């Protein structure tokens, strides 16, 4: 007879660890199953971790967790082949405790976070792959099957937080294989540099951190972006774009990354660094319309597995943490009522709807599809705006009136007035 738990959590990422932590704290018998050697050894993100969501669960976590730098400077650079238009903010407000966001390296952070869940009483099992959900004859989820001998485990509820690769959900018939235009692939290198070099280069002091997102030429106009985040003694340098774009353009992600590192405005930022690790990960960017069912009889779905990513705002781990907490709350209430039916677990969706998670996902539901349909957003405008600015900033004896006309002609040559208006309308629709 397989061992029975109150709750099985599939996958030790931000969503799963949060769920296990919150459930164990309430005294439920919870097992957290992770396929890696340790929590974190399979996990990748850019990585910016926002403080507020985890601080609600473990107040003051940021004083003890292995974090890299607190972010005081956020920038967005629009790249053409040879130039960058820079927008951003450096604020003293984000330099004050308890801070707004931190750069993190997930292998270290997830290991620490999972250890906190274990301290609360969660049972952590590593090196174990969950292959599918077990159901009874009525279709209710009653446990999981793993790749271990005699690998079946039973529970009243299963929380599926398996990440971007939704193999368990698919094997259990809960969703179809995601489409290539709803999933991005990102590659990243951790590039080591001495602390002082990073602090001089990015104008930082102590543990202050900077993050830069790059658009346009960095992905050759494909739907996605590149980034550089400062860690204590390294930079996280990466980029991602929709898999459908990589398919069409026959561009290798690592070649694109190398090209990005050689860009004239990027090269000085990464110069002299030593690559320490190369990694790749998928990001579910299909948004609201691409989400699987969030609950059913005996199960709930959290984090990347549920498609909880808001790509335009670089948010994902925060949604994962909040969804893990709300799933745990729902299961605790269900346990009190002794009812794990879909009707009872529907409270999870209501909680998500009452929070920023589903509200933001809903607001940005058109963003990815609209940007994908209009390749000029990232393929034409970044170059155009840089050329216009170059023209304006080049002092060469040409009267300004003549320059203004030249810029206008240049813009209209690329995009006629009607197209400009159409693009503006669609951009409005995509984001608001």
């Amino acid at each position, binding site marked *: 007879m397989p061992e029975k738990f109150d709750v099985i959590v599939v996958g030790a990422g931000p969503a799963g660890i949060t769920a296990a932590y919150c459930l164990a704290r309430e005294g439920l018998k919870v097992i957290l199953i992770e396929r890696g050697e340790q929590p974190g050894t399979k996990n990748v993100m850019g990585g910016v971790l926002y403080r507020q969501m985890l601080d609600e669960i473990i107040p003051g976590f940021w004083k003890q967790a292995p974090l890299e730098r607190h972010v005081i400077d956020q920038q967005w650079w629009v790249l053409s082949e040879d130039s960058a238009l820079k927008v951003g903010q450096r604020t003293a407000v984000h330099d004050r405790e308890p801070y707004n966001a931190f750069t993190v390296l997930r292998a270290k952070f997830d290991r620490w976070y999972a250890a906190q869940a274990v301290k609360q009483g969660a049972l952590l099992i*590593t090196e174990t792959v969950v292959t599918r959900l077990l159901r009874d004859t009525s279709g209710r989820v009653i446990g999981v099957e793993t790749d271990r001998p005699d690998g079946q485990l039973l529970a009243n509820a299963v929380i599926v937080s398996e990440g971007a690769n939704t193999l368990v959900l698919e094997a259990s018939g809960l969703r179809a294989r995601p489409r290539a235009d709803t999933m991005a692939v990102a*590659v990243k*290198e951790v590039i080591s540099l001495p602390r002082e070099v990073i602090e001089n280069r990015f104008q930082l002091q102590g543990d202050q951190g900077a993050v830069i997102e790059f658009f346009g030429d960095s992905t050759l106009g494909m739907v996605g972006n590149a980034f550089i985040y400062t860690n204590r003694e390294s930079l996280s340098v990466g980029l991602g774009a929709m898999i459908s774009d990589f398919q069409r353009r026959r561009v290798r992600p690592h*070649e694109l990354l190398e090209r990005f590192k050689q860009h004239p405005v990027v090269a000085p930022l990464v110069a002299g660094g030593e690559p320490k*690790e190369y*990694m790749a990960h998928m990001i579910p960017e299909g948004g609201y319309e691409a989400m699987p069912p969030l609950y059913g009889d005996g199960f709930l779905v959290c984090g990347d597995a549920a498609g909880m990513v808001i790509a335009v705002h670089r948010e994902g781990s925060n949604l994962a943490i909040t969804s893990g907490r709300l799933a745990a709350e729902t299961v605790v209430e269900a346990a009190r009522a002794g009812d794990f039916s879909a009707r009872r677990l529907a409270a999870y969706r209501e909680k998500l709807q009452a929070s920023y998670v589903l509200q933001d996902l809903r607001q940005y539901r058109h963003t990815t599809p609209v940007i994908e349909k209009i390749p000029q957003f990232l393929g034409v405008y970044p170059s155009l705006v840089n050329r216009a600015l170059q023209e304006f900033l080049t002092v060469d004896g040409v009267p300004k009136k003549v320059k203004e006309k030249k810029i206008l002609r240049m813009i209209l040559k690329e995009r006629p007035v009607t197209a400009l208006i159409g693009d503006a309308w669609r951009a409005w629709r995509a984001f608001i």
Partner: protein
Amino acid sequence: MNTAVDTRSRTGEGVTTGYRPDGRTGLPAVDVQRKLFTTRFKADKGSHLAIKDPEVCRDCEAKPCLYFCPAEVYKWEEGRITIAFEGCLECGTCRIGCPFGNIDWRYPRGGFGVQYKFG
């Protein structure tokens, strides 16, 4: 940078390297093995990846798996796709990106596969 780069641009043969119609934007050739050398792996004996039907690959003209895989796991050699599963970063891109769903994709056995030190 330690990564070997040469600046041969991969143009021609219907390969688009840039969004500009003149194709001026070149991509550097990258030795992915040198990148993978920085990443730690614990390879299992058998492959966790398999081609379901080799005929499908033969008939697939685009063969996008040769491009979108960040570890260049897939190569076209002597009329068939070969799989260097030992360097797989387990991102899952090929499973989503294969236009025919022709890749049997599982995770490596528990504990095996890529082992990120930083993540």
